[in-house]
């Protein structure tokens, strides 16, 4: 392999290694040893808060949903097959979580619909449910995806102000990030060392050639 090609390759690998180190270390710091990513938003629109499968089932790990009302009123979190949840909320005012932003921890919400909420508690579509005054938590596994989670007051009354937090926890993410950082460090060290040594050899080679030409003259 020509020296220039080898040095270019070394530079690319070193840059890649540095990218891996930075990315891995960054993720390690953000996720922490528990491997948690949290996304949160507050809805002040009337109606229910809906977490569709595009958000709820975007990862293969259980998602913990926490909903909190500052007024201490009743909060209910329920999950159902997404088709059923869509059907029962079709004519109701809802606020939908459309996307999560990592590592910002933001949850995009957008309000739609204007109809009154039906009493969701009567329906048999809900697979998981949690209800509590002030704040409720529900751990949703991914076994029945696609599903939709719906946060309500537990009856037909509107939620006026509720903060919804999604927590994805996977210790594996922490170790994956650690592995990425370690692999990046190894790549960077070897590539930079190769660049350093290669430059030194090239310089020595230049010096050798100069001496030879002087002797010939």
């Amino acid at each position, binding site marked *: 392999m020509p020296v220039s090609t080898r040095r270019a390759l070394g530079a690319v690998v070193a840059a890649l290694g540095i990218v891996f180190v930075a990315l891995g270390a960054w993720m390690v710091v953000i996720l922490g040893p528990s491997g948690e990513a949290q996304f949160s938003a507050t809805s002040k629109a009337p109606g229910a808060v809906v977490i569709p499968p595009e958000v709820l089932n975007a990862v293969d790990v259980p998602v913990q949903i926490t909903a909190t009302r500052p007024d201490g009123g009743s909060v209910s979190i329920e999950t159902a097959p997404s088709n059923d949840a869509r059907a029962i909320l079709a004519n109701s005012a809802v606020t939908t979580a459309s996307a999560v932003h990592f590592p910002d921890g933001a949850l995009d919400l957008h309000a739609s619909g204007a109809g009154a909420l039906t009493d969701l508690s009567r329906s048999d579509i809900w697979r998981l449910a949690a209800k509590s005054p002030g704040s409720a938590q529900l751990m949703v596994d991914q076994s029945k995806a696609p599903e939709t989670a719906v946060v309500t007051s537990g009856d037909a009354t509107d939620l006026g102000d509720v903060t919804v937090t999604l927590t994805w926890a996977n210790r594996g993410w922490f170790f994956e990030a650690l592995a990425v950082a370690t692999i990046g460090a190894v790549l960077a060290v070897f590539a930079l060392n190769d660049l350093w040594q290669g*430059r030194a050899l090239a310089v020595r080679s230049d010096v050798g050639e100069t001496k030879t030409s002087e002797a010939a003259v």
Partner: protein
Amino acid sequence: MTPQDLISKAAAALRLSRQERQDLFTKAAEALRLTRQDRQDLTTKAAGVLRLRREDLIRIVHVLIVVVVGVCVFAVIASAPGWGATHALLGIHEAPNAGTTSAPLTVDQAKNILNRDFAASYLGQTTSGSASEAALRTAYTDQGLRGADGRVKLASVQPAASTSPLLVPHPQLLAVSRGFGYPRFIVAQTVTTDGSLPILHLLVSPDVATPYRISMSVEMVPPATVKPFDVLPSGSPLVTSGTGLAVAPDTLLNLYAAHMAFPAKAASKSPFEADSFSDQVRAGAAAASSAVASQATFTQTHTVAPNSVYAVRQADGDALVFGVLVRTDSFAVKSDQNVSTAANKAFVLLTGKKVITKSASITTLEFVIFAVPQSGGQSTLVAAREQVVAGSGS
């Protein structure tokens, strides 16, 4: 592109003459050579200031360039969500599509629904007044509710409710719906420990907002058995037409209803086997007719209750067909006759009349379940039960 090429293109863009362009090219080339020389001098001077060899300084600068490039690339990757580097690390992906060959209920959900409805049924039959009515409305729907109401009203003159589901603490879940359409159903069986006949239960949810409620609870007819359904996680399909069955469910029940009419009508070949339930009904009608022959004319009709027929496909392709027939016993009293109804305690309780002079009618619901083969052969009555629900007389 070399600097010379760049100058040539710039000159062309500026529309310079050939001589002018040649001069410019020569001067620029000299300028570039000077710059390169200056740069080499600058590197050597900088190395001297830093007390480094010139080659070491160049290596350090190269390493710094690589590090800066790496950090810049990282910053771009981390700040551009569309590039998906962080999403890839977390395993973020698109949500899976909904399956059409799975059950909308889990086994635990279905069992909870059964327990809730059976508990309400028990409460409805063991309490009275508005509490009983509310509990029955929670447990039953449609003709099932009508039958349960009739049973509660006639509890004092009819045998105790041997079919109360709560007599059996652990119902066996046989089948749940497949897919996300409506209506949805649950089929369950209870077997009492006192040697009574097993009971088949059909629970129905007509739409997304309405909970499952008992549509019928029917004692099995010995020696009938129920073939297995598809496994619970995949659910069992509802048969919405007669396709793939020896006889369409609606046709079967209409023919069965016509078969039991009194006076009997001529019938073509039946798609169902003879059974003890229809024999008893026909014998009862004949006995009632002869008992009142001198005072009244007796007729009996059977019609299929609207929206009461459900057919659930079984694992081998056969189907279990559930339906409700409405039986009407009519008495037309002959002129100058008074008929005492005191012996019929249910009629007296429902109408408050012990004597009729013109006419009377008694409405009875007949809950029936048939096993219908996939092709060929006759259908078999698997379960049947009747319940008087209304009466009138004058």
